[in-house]
């Protein structure tokens, strides 16, 4: 255990020293993985699919905020969908606009989960994001998780029916609209995933915020159980195909990641590092402040009941005299 704590402190010190390079590098990596996944799965526009363009967009992601990467990813997706079919692109545009109006209006800076969810679902470890978000984010991160899940299943549906959607058809102008919307409306697996992940995030968040001993451990274990039971039970009830081995592996991977996140971040919130500079008469200060994560303590109220003591002549002070004189003058 001591070795782990030493490793943790060394990692913390390393991150604290070099975070000005590490953060852009991680953002670049995330953006690169996002664009590679988009191009690999729905890369219908050969011009944007090229690696130099992907690299340039990923470099932009390194220097711009996460919200900008989300915006650029949405544009790239729409361009690919437009190359496939105009109708599909229209539906995709409407979907993204609705996600923006209903969620990003309230939290424009919290787009990370919308990017991470499709990647984790692609690698069959979708529950990693809800459980870790419940540990380190606020309750409304559940909405970005649901949005990310919606985007994933929408694009999965497009990919699976690309040949039908991309072909010229005599069925009528609304055939493709109906086909695309049915990907979302009738998709029981998507609804199950959205409900499961939202509930998991909220359960983990609620238990984590309790001022109880080992609340973080209980939160992680309960979140994993909720996710496992809902996915297993939901898929059996709805008749969706289930791979128990993958589900158990997903749960195990999520548990490992969650405990690592808890171990590294329990005390400090590195997502809110503040870098400031100021001066006074004697020094110029370069300060880096890392806020702590506080668990609210229970409010204590102490009520004392005592009888009012009558003042004797010997207790009468100068202040009492002045107070009384002031009152008499006013009267």
């Amino acid at each position, binding site marked *: 255990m001591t070795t782990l704590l030493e490793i943790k402190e060394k990692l913390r010190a390393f991150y604290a020293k070099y975070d000005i390079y590490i953060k852009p590098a991680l953002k670049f990596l995330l953006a690169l993985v996002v664009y590679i996944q988009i191009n690999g799965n729905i890369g219908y526009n050969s011009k944007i699919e090229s690696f130099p363009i992907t690299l340039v967009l990923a470099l932009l992601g390194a220097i711009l905020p996460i919200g900008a990467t989300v915006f650029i990813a949405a544009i790239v997706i729409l361009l690919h969908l437009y190359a496939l079919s105009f109708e599909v692109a229209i539906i995709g545009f409407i979907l993204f606009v609705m996600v923006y109006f*209903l969620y990003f209006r*309230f939290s424009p800076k919290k787009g990370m989960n919308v990017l991470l969810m499709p990647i984790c679902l692609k690698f069959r470890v979708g529950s990693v994001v809800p459980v870790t978000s419940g540990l380190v984010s606020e309750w409304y991160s559940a909405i970005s998780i649901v949005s990310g899940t919606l985007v994933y299943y929408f694009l999965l549906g497009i990919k699976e029916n690309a040949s039908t959607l991309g072909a010229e058809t005599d069925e009528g102008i*609304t055939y493709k609209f109906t086909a695309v919307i*049915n990907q979302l409306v009738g998709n029981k697996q998507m609804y199950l995933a959205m409900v499961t992940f939202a509930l998991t995030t909220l359960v983990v968040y609620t238990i984590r915020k309790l001022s109880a001993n080992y609340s973080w451990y209980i939160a992680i274990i309960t979140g994993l159980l909720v996710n496992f039971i809902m996915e297993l039970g939901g898929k059996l009830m709805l008749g969706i195909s289930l791979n128990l081995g993958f589900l158990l592996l997903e749960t195990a991977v999520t548990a490992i990641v969650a405990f690592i996140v808890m171990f590294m971040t329990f005390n400090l919130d590195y997502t809110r590092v503040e870098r400031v500079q100021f001066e*006074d008469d004697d020094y110029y200060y370069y300060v880096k*402040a890392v806020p702590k994560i506080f668990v609210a303590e229970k409010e204590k109220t102490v009520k004392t009941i005592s009888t009012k003591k009558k003042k004797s002549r010997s207790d009468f002070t100068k202040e009492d005299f002045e107070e009384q004189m002031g009152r008499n003058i006013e009267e």
Partner: protein
Amino acid sequence: MINEDKIKTMTKLAAFDESDAKKYSQIIEYYRSDYIGKEMLKSTLMGTIAYVFCVALWFFSNADDFLKNINNLDYMSLGMDLLKKYLLFLLAYLFITYVVYAVRYSYGQKKVKNYHKNIHNILKSYDE
């Protein structure tokens, strides 16, 4: 000699100036009712646009049926049904907006109050 308490206070002040000052100062410029009212107006507009898009999606997915029965549809009851759903949706969306921005206003007020308290402490330390 470095005064640690002064550094801590000045760090908090500088951190607030750097990241939160613009956001919370704009919030505090309004009265609570005006701020929440302004955001609810924005939400009404955005919620209406989102609802119109939803209805458009629903229309496109059933466009063939609509076009076939274009002369037989009961437009009045369809319109009333859409209006009822719009009002319910708007009510829920405005309720969420109210809660989110009321909490944000209270939080911003507390932050600005702490900021002024810290400024007062720093000025006091200069007078000593």
